[in-house]
C-alpha cells in the first residue's frame, strides 16, 4: 500500500476528512447568522426611515444581503446532505 493510500485510509477510518466540512459548515452558519442580524437592522432602518436620503442605498444593501443569504443557505443544504 502506498503511503498516500495509507494516510487516506487512516483519515477515512478516523473520519478526519469530515472535520474540514464541519469547519466550513460552522463558518457558514456564523456568517449567515451575522447576515440575518444585518438584514433585520436594514429592514428596521428602512421601516423607520431614519435617513430618507439613504433609503436607496439601504434597499440595495438589503438586496445584496438577501442574495447572499439565499446562496449561503443553498451551500449549507449541500454541505448537510454530504
Amino acid at each position: 500500500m502506498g503511503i498516500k493510500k495509507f494516510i487516506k485510509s487512516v483519515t477515512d477510518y478516523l473520519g478526519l476528512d469530515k472535520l474540514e466540512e464541519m469547519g466550513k459548515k460552522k463558518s457558514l452558519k456564523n456568517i449567515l447568522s451575522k447576515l440575518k442580524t444585518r438584514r433585520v437592522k436594514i429592514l428596521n432602518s428602512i421601516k423607520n426611515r431614519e435617513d430618507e436620503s439613504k433609503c436607496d442605498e439601504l434597499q440595495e444593501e438589503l438586496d445584496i444581503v438577501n442574495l447572499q443569504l439565499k446562496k449561503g443557505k443553498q451551500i449549507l443544504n449541500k454541505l448537510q446532505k454530504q
Partner: protein
Amino acid sequence: MLKNIFLPVILSVLAYVFWISPNFKEVSAGVAIFLFGMIALELGFKSFSGGMLEKILKYSTDKLYKSILFGAISTTIMQSSSLVSILTISFLGAGLIGLAQGIGIIFGANIGTTTGAWLVAGFGLRVDIAAYAMPMLVFGVVLIFQKSQTLKGFGYILAGVGFLFLGIHYMKEGFEAFKNTIDLSTLSVSGLKGLFIFTGVGIVATVVMQSSHATLVLIITALAAGQISYENALALAIGANVGTTITAIVGAMSSNIEGKRLAAAHMIFNLVTGLIAIIFIYQIISLVDFIALEIGIAKEDYTLKLAIFHTIFNLIGITMMLPFINGLVRFLERVLPLQESEDEIGYDSVKYLNESVLELPETALGAIIRETKHLYENAFEIIVHGLNLRRRYITSSMELDEVIKKKHSKNYINIENFYHHKIKGIYGDIIDFSTRAQSNMSPELIQELYKIKLANRDLVEAVKDTKHLQKNLIKYSQHQNQHIQDAYTSITKGLAELLRYINIISTTDEEDVIVLLLAKAKVHTQKNDIISNGMLDNLIRKHLITNEMATSLMNDSSYTYNISKNLTSMAEVLFIDRQSDIKSLHEDTVISNSDVETILEKKDS
C-alpha cells in the same frame, strides 16, 4: 589573500596531526561524522517544513509562553537549535511573527538544546549506540533513494540520527584510546584563569564547528574519559552557549532588519547568561551538587552533573531575561532602526522578501502575501492622491460629497514618478521572488501563488489606469462646461466610494462585512459605469458635451471600470485569510455578473 591560504593551511595541519596521532584522528572523525549527521537531520526536517512545521510554528507563537514552549519542544525533537534559529529568522523576516515571539522561540530553543546533554550523558555513554547507528544508517540511506519526498525526508532523519550516534561512538572511542597515551587532563587550568581560558576555547570550538551541540557532546565524551576536569568542562559548556550565537548571526546576514534584531537578541541573551554563569559559577556548582544528590545521581558522575549544570544555567538566564523581553525589543528597535528612504518621494523597496525563506514554501507564500499588501498600501496612496483626494478622508466616515471637495494639493501629483518610486521595483521583486519560490512549492501552493500574482498585476494595472484617467480629470474637473465637470466629479466620487470599501475590507476582521462589501463593490462598479448606466448617451443625445469630450469620457469610463474591477478582484484574493473556511466558501458565494444585473434592474424598476 588570507582567505586563499587559510583552508590549505588548516587541512595540512590537520593531516600532519592525524599522521602523528591516530587517536586525534578518531576523535576528529567522530566530530565530522556527528556534524554530517546534523546536516542530514536538518535536510530531513527541512523536507517537512513545506507545511507542517511552518503551520505549527504559525499557530504556536501567538503567546510568549507558547513561543518558549515551541522553541523548547522543536529543538528537543530536532536536536538543533541552529535550525530552529534559522527558521525563526525566516519567519520573522517574512513578517509572520513578531520580534517578541521570535525571542521567545530562541529562549525556548536554549532550553531544548540542553536535552542533548542529557541524552548523551544519560544514554549515549552508557549504551553501545554504534549498534543502533548501523541499522539506522542502512534504513536511512535506502529511504533517501526513494522518489517520495516524505520517505526521503524520513530517510535523512534516520541517517542523520545514525550518523550522530556513530559520531558519538567514535569520539568516545578516541578519547578512551587517548587516555592510554596522553593525559590531556594535565593541561587543565584551575581557578578563574582556567574558567576564562576554557570559556574562550568553548566559543572558538563552537564557532569552528557551527554547533554548540557538537561541542557539548565532545566535552561530555572527553569528560567521561577523564581527559578534562569537571570545572573546565563547565567553562567549555558556557563557551559553547556563547559561540552558538554565531550561527544565528550568519543566518541573519541575508535577512531583513527584524532577522538582524533577533540575532542580536540571541547574542545578548547568551552573553548575559554566560556572564551570570561565570560570576556565580561556584554557587551554581553547589546547586548542581544539591540537585544531583536529591535525584540520586552519583557524586562522581560528572557527565550527568554537566547536563544538570547546562540546564540550570540556561533556566537561570531565561528567568532573569524574561521580564525584560519588551525592554529588549524596544532597545533593539532603537539600536537597529528601519532604514528611511533617501530622496523626496523615496524609492520604496520590498520589506518581507528575503532569501532565507525561499526554501520554506508556506513561509515564502506568506511573505509574498505580506509584500503584496505592502504594494497595495502604496497603490492605494497613489490612486487616492492621483485623484487629488486625501487618504484620511477616504478612510474616515465623512460624506463623500465632502471628501471630493477636499483636495490633496493644488496640483495633481505625477503618478508616473510615484509609479517608478513605489510600485515598479516592488512589483518586479515580487514576481522575481515568486518565480524562484515556486520551484519548491506543491501544485496547490502554486495555484494560490498564481492568484496572488494576478492580484499584484491588478494593483499595477489600477495604478496605470489612474494615470491615464488623471489627464482628463485635470483637464475637465475645472472646465467651464458644467456637464463634463459633473461627469468627472461623478467618476471621482464613484472611485472614492470604491476605495472606501476596499479600505474597510483591508482593515476589518468581520467576515460578513468583507463578503458584503465585496458584493457592494461589484454592484457599484457596474452602477457607476457611465456607459451602461446611460449617462454618456444622455449627454451626447442632448448635445451637452462636444464630440471630443464624449470620446474622452468614453475612454475614461473604461479606465474607471477597469480600476474598480481590478481593485475588487485584488481584494477578493488578498484580504480573505487564505487559511479560513470562508476563503473556499467565498468562491461559491461570490456574486456573479448576472446577480449584479438583477440587483440593478430591481433598483431601476
